[in-house]
């Protein structure tokens, strides 16, 4: 259900302004969302001044610099640092992205705000709780389903059939798209969201899969699928340049093809 203001205990307050690094000539301010369940109280915005001459080019480099040089208590997820794992997704300068491939020079303004992905429960600092997101991914059964006995060698697929999966298989499940979608904000408990639906289409269009009808049955629902109102935030923020809205439109095409 729509919720336009944060509950009292969740509204972030002004936090600590950390001292500027000594001897730094080229600094930039980063306003970072902080919340610790152990400490309790409201979340807060802490400001860090980062020495840009001693820091790598990406936003993830900034966070690691802060953790190493200023505040070791800052919590965030990261792993591959090359846009493959999707761990470091967060809201950077008002737009969802993955910190490892987002250059800090791409973000306009003197101060860059960094917050967790929007409209999700926060575990700590920049770490959101993605439990529901993963359960929705599992709902679309993202694996090959067949009744035909498995061939001795492999399931065959033509080059054209394989090409249908381009623009879909690259999804790294970072959740940038789903958590940028207003429809997912208001009805995330029922609407599967762009990421899960893109994954659903990836299996719907796979020529080797034999469960297309069942998959469509599981998706045909006013909320699970049809909450997509082509707002297109998903396509705008996807750090891999994918278009989940297009995949959802193609699912709707398949639905229509089935009845008319």
């Amino acid at each position, binding site marked *: 259900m*729509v919720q336009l203001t944060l509950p009292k205990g969740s509204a972030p307050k002004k936090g600590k302004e950390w001292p500027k690094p000594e001897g730094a000539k080229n600094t930039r301010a980063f306003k970072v969302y902080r919340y610790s369940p152990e400490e309790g109280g409201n979340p807060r915005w802490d400001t860090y001044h980062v020495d840009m001459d001693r820091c790598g080019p990406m936003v993830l480099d900034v966070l690691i610099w802060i953790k190493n040089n200023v505040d070791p208590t800052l919590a965030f997820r990261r792993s591959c640092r090359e846009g493959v794992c999707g761990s470091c997704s967060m809201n950077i300068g008002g737009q969802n992205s993955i910190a490892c491939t987002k250059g800090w020079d791409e973000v306009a303004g003197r101060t860059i705000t960094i917050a967790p992905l929007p409209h999700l429960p926060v575990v700590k600092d920049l770490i959101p709780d993605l439990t*529901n997101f993963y*359960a929705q991914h599992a709902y679309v059964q993202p694996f090959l389903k067949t009744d035909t006995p498995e061939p001795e060698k492999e399931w065959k697929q033509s080059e054209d059939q394989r090409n249908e999966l381009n623009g879909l298989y690259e999804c790294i499940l970072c959740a940038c798209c789903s958590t940028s979608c207003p429809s997912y904000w*208001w009805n995330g408990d029922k609407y599967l969201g762009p990421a899960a639906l893109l994954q659903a289409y990836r299996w719907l269009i796979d020529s080797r899969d034999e469960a297309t009808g069942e998959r469509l049955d599981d998706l*045909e*629902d*006013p909320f699970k699928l049809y909450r997509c*109102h082509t707002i297109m935030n998903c396509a705008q923020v996807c750090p891999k340049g994918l278009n989940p809205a297009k995949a959802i439109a193609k699912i709707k095409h398949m639905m*229509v093809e089935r009845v008319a």
Partner: protein
Amino acid sequence: MSTDFKTPTAAARGLGSAKSGTEHHIRQRVSAIALALLVPWFLFAVIAASRSGFDGATAFFAQPWNAILMILTLGAAFYHMRLGMQVVVEDYLGKAGMKQGLLILNTFVCVGLFAATALSVLKIWITASV
């Protein structure tokens, strides 16, 4: 501390798939296509009918084709509005009782508006042809 012990899988599955929604999707598109054709005529009609005062307007809708197109426009518009408002209510209201109440009200208001406006056009057309 949370007291909801539902598993994530149970939450994601929810009440299961309603196995409907495609019909609504198609109807919304078809009524939109109808409106894309009818609205330009409607704008032309409003300007044409209002130019020559009350008598001119009644004379305009006394023409059968104008009356037919007007009733079709009203039908498509209120039907499309009924479908669109339904989506808005579903989007923004999660409270069960209130949501269903508003959805019923939406249907009643749209059907009522269509009946009232269509009858007005019919009345002009019948009165003029007597």
